C-alpha cells in the first residue's frame, strides 16, 4: 500500500498533466470554432491535410483529457480521499456525489460522442459534422471538470 505522500504526489502530477491537456484542447477547439465548420468543410477533409490533421488533433486531445480525468485522476483522487474505488461506473457516480463531475450521464455521453467521432469519420460527412459540432460544445464541460478537480486537489494539499 502506498503512503499518503506517494498518493498525493501522483495526484499532483496528474493534475499537471490534465492542465496541459486542457490547454492543448482549448487551443485546438478555438481554432476549429474560428473556422465555422460546415458540411463542405467536412467534405473537403479528404483533400485537405491541414484541416484533417486539425480534426485528428481535436479528437485525440478531447479523448486524452477525458481519459486522464476519468480513468486516472478520478480513481487517484478517490484513493487519496480514502474513498473506495470500484468499477468505472461506481467511480463516476461517487465523483458526481462529491461534486467533482457534474453528471455521470453526461460524462458517458461525451465518451460515446468521442467514439462516434472516430467511427463517423468513415461513414458519412453529415454524421461527422453533427458529432463534431456537439463535441465542440462539450469542450467547456471537460475544461470545467478539470478546473473543479484541480481546485479540490488544492484544498487537500493544504491540509
Amino acid at each position, binding site marked *: 500500500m502506498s503512503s499518503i505522500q506517494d498518493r498525493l504526489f501522483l495526484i499532483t502530477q496528474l493534475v499537471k498533466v490534465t492542465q496541459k491537456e486542457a490547454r492543448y484542447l482549448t487551443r485546438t477547439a478555438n481554432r476549429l470554432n474560428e473556422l465555422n465548420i460546415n458540411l463542405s468543410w467536412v467534405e473537403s477533409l479528404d483533400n485537405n491535410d491541414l484541416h484533417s490533421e486539425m480534426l485528428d488533433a481535436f479528437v485525440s486531445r478531447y479523448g486524452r483529457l477525458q481519459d486522464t480525468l476519468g480513468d486516472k485522476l478520478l480513481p487517484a483522487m478517490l484513493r487519496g480521499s480514502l474513498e473506495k474505488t470500484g*468499477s*468505472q*461506473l*461506481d467511480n463516476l457516480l461517487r465523483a458526481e456525489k462529491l461534486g467533482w463531475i457534474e453528471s*455521470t*450521464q*453526461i460524462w*458517458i*455521453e*461525451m*465518451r*460515446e*460522442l468521442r467514439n*462516434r467521432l472516430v467511427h*463517423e469519420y468513415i*461513414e*458519412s460527412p453529415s*454524421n461527422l459534422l*453533427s*458529432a463534431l459540432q*456537439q463535441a465542440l460544445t462539450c469542450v467547456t464541460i471537460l475544461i470545467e471538470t478539470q478546473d473543479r478537480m484541480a481546485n479540490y486537489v488544492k484544498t487537500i494539499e493544504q491540509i
Partner: protein
Amino acid sequence: MRLDDKTREIIKNEVANQLGSEAIIRLFGSRVDDSERGGDIDLLIEPSHSLAKRIQIECQLAARLYIKLGGRKVDVLIKDPHDPILAVHEQALKNGIVL
C-alpha cells in the same frame, strides 16, 4: 440470444421512453451467438419517425443504458426511416433478433 429477461426489459423500457413504444429494437453482434461469451450489447433501433438529432440521441441512450445496466457497455445505432441503409445496418437487419 444471450440477454436475460431483466436486461431485455430495461432496454425495451428505456427505448420506449426515449423513442416511443413503436420503435423496433434488434440485438446484433456477438450477443446473438449462443456459443460466445460476454461482449458488448449491440443494438439497432428503428424508430417510426425521423430524428433531428440522431447522434445525440444515440449517445444519450447508450449512456442511460450503461448506467441502468450497471456499467455494461451498450452500443446504440439508430436507423432513421429516411436514411439510406448502410452496410452495418444490413448486417444487423439480416442477423439481428428483435427484442
